């Protein structure tokens, strides 16, 4: 959500957003049936979400967007009998898509770019890594922008998810839709008939499966210690994958047999770390979750939640393909910004300066709360 910003910046954003929606409105197609979904919007900065909204037709939905130019658009993963009802239990949940969220942050590597810092007390700021403010000693807030490398890492995680969903859960490719979230991660929507009715408790089990939580290691350990080959163990699913990977890492089953129990246990732990799919558990368990609308703008970055075809996944570059705006030169007052890259170009770092940037980069910094619109 857009943080506190000047009116001029907000008006600039709204103009740019309008251009995008005007041109691309036909791409905004909510999941069917539209009249059973709840919609939510952030319409103005600093105001709460406008939600419990429903539409009877795609036309009404598009009209609403072009009239309001929302900063963010959300649609429920669930189908409801009465999606407009303000009381959650009276909405009457019918079923819900499976929804997965992978965040670049949880994938745990840090951007290679030097961050910026802002003192939370006196407001001093600069480029670099500082825990304490040099003038007043107060703690600082670090500003980091997501890097291409982090997003790549998150994309690898998404591919892992897709593999497990396909091989273990039997999800057909045509029932799976993958998106760049528009900011720091990826979303996967699963719309497969038999999974729509899985309850919250069942979804919790799916989450534990993906995160490999609650794994009973006893059986695995016994097989591993006996040095049994993968062909001779009756394992399936995640356990089989773990087993195969441990054997592979050890080099051979003979080596495993010769290893100490603690060593094998340690290897097992490492393999679990490697194989688990780092989804956000809360998102998947919550059937009432509102998902960012596909092909809508994410106002935390000004980029689009973009659909990625499965075959394009390996080569997808969000910092290229999810950009919504043109490159018209725009003047921006930047307080502080670490170096960042978009559309193959590198910008910054900036500190207390007025800079000329292409519109997409200007929108990006404004959405990140790092710059204010100065004119064209």
């Amino acid at each position, binding site marked *: 959500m857009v943080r506190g910003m000047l009116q001029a910046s907000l008006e600039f954003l709204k103009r740019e957003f309008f251009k995008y929606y005007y041109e691309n409105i036909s791409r905004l197609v909510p999941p069917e049936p539209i009249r059973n979904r709840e919609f*939510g919007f952030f319409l103005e900065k600093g105001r709460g*979400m406008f939600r419990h909204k429903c539409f009877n037709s795609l036309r009404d939905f598009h009209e609403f967007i072009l009239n309001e130019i929302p900063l963010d658009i*959300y649609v*429920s993963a669930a189908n409801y009998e009465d999606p407009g009802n303000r009381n*959650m*239990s009276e*909405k009457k*949940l019918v079923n819900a898509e499976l*929804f997965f*969220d992978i965040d670049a942050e949880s994938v745990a590597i840090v951007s290679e770019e030097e961050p910026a810092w802002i003192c939370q007390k006196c407001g001093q700021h600069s480029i670099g890594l500082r825990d304490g403010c040099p003038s007043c000693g107060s703690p600082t807030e670090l500003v980091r922008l997501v890097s291409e490398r982090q997003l790549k890492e998150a994309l690898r995680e998404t591919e892992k998810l897709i593999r497990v969903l396909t*091989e*273990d*859960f*039997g*999800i057909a490719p045509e029932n799976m839709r993958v998106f760049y*979230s528009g900011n720091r991660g990826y*979303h996967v929507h699963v719309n497969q008939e*038999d*999974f729509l*009715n*899985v*309850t919250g*408790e*069942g979804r*919790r*089990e*799916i989450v*534990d*499966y993906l995160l*490999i*939580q*609650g*794994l*009973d290691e006893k059986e695995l350990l016994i097989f591993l210690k006996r040095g049994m080959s993968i062909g001779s163990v*009756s*394992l*399936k*699913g*995640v*356990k089989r994958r773990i087993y195969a990977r441990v054997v592979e890492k050890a080099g051979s089953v003979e080596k495993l047999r010769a290893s100490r129990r603690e060593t094998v246990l340690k290897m097992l732990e490492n393999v679990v770390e490697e194989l688990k799919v780092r989804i*956000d558990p*809360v*998102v998947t368990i*919550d*059937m*009432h*979750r*509102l*998902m*960012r609308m596909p092909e809508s703008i994410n106002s935390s970055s000004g980029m689009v939640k973009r659909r990625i075809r499965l075959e394009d996944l390996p080569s997808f570059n969000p910092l290229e393909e999810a950009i919504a705006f043109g490159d018209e030169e725009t003047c921006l007052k930047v307080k502080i910004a670490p170096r960042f890259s978009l559309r193959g170009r590198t910008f910054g770092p900036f500190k207390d300066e007025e800079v000329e940037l292409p519109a997409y980069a200007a929108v990006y910094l404004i959405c990140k709360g790092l710059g204010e619109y100065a004119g064209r």
Partner: protein
Amino acid sequence: MTGENILMAARYPFLPEAREFISRNIDLSLESLEKTGSEAALKRAVERVKNALIFKEVKVTALDELNYVREMLSFPIAIILVSMIMNEYIRRMYALGESRGAYRRMLNESDETLLYIGEKMGIRGVPDNENTIRVKIPTYLKLAYSFHAPHWKLVNRAVNNGYVLMGKTEYARLIQVEVNNYVYEKTLEPVPAEAVPNSFKRAVEEIIEVWNRLETGKASRIPLREREDTPPCIDRIIKRMENGENASHFERLVVATFMIARNRSVGEIIEFFSKQPDYKYSVTKYQVEHLAGIRGGGKKYSVPSCRTILTNGLCYPDEYCKGINHPLRYGERNAAGEPRVS
């Protein structure tokens, strides 16, 4: 219907066959039940409920099966009787008793029959190699999440291409859960009091009498309270623990997981457990942290389901328990939280 099928419908009277047989051959309206010579069926129905209350299992003998009309008819009558009593505990015990009995009988069936019963109960199983049966993941999740043992967790199962693999016994357990759900749901349907024949009312009294006898010496029934957050089963354990009574391992697990689910801190929970006679700080801390997922691989333990609590003899339901399957749902069937966005 072939002879064999009729016997099977008598053995498993929740199967659609039994329902069809009855609706084709017998007028099941309440007014006519008295006239159709259903005396014997009524008697058997009372026995079913008593079996459930006393032995926690409804037994069906070969002789019962041969009396197939009586047997099949006694099942819907027993459900009517249980609904009339309008007592949550009896509803749950009856459902448990029927499902347990069915489970026991299913273990002796051929694979073919077992798969047939499963199919009819909406739990389609596909034979896999070497005595294993495959069940679709969503079907499995719907039934198995309530089991507490680690080997039922999906992460510990053989999962492949949309299916969970299991042995015959486990498959029968899944069917048992579905039978339990089915019977329980049926007993929730209200029975119009005016339409009930007098013989039924007498049968109900007979059941209540047995129940009262079983209850003497036990803690008195939980009176209906103001709606609170804590379900009666857990409230009861907490009260007893507060009095310094020594709680069983399972009781402690229930209370601790419940408190964790309600976001109480580890410190608070340890403090609460400190009243236990065998209290040891380090041990308690270790166990609570384990349950909270702070130790041991980060797996947070969930609160056991109503069925598990019931099986452990700790369910003391009140009216707010009606229709729920998990203590955290207490008082709010179908309720939903405020959604968040992603």
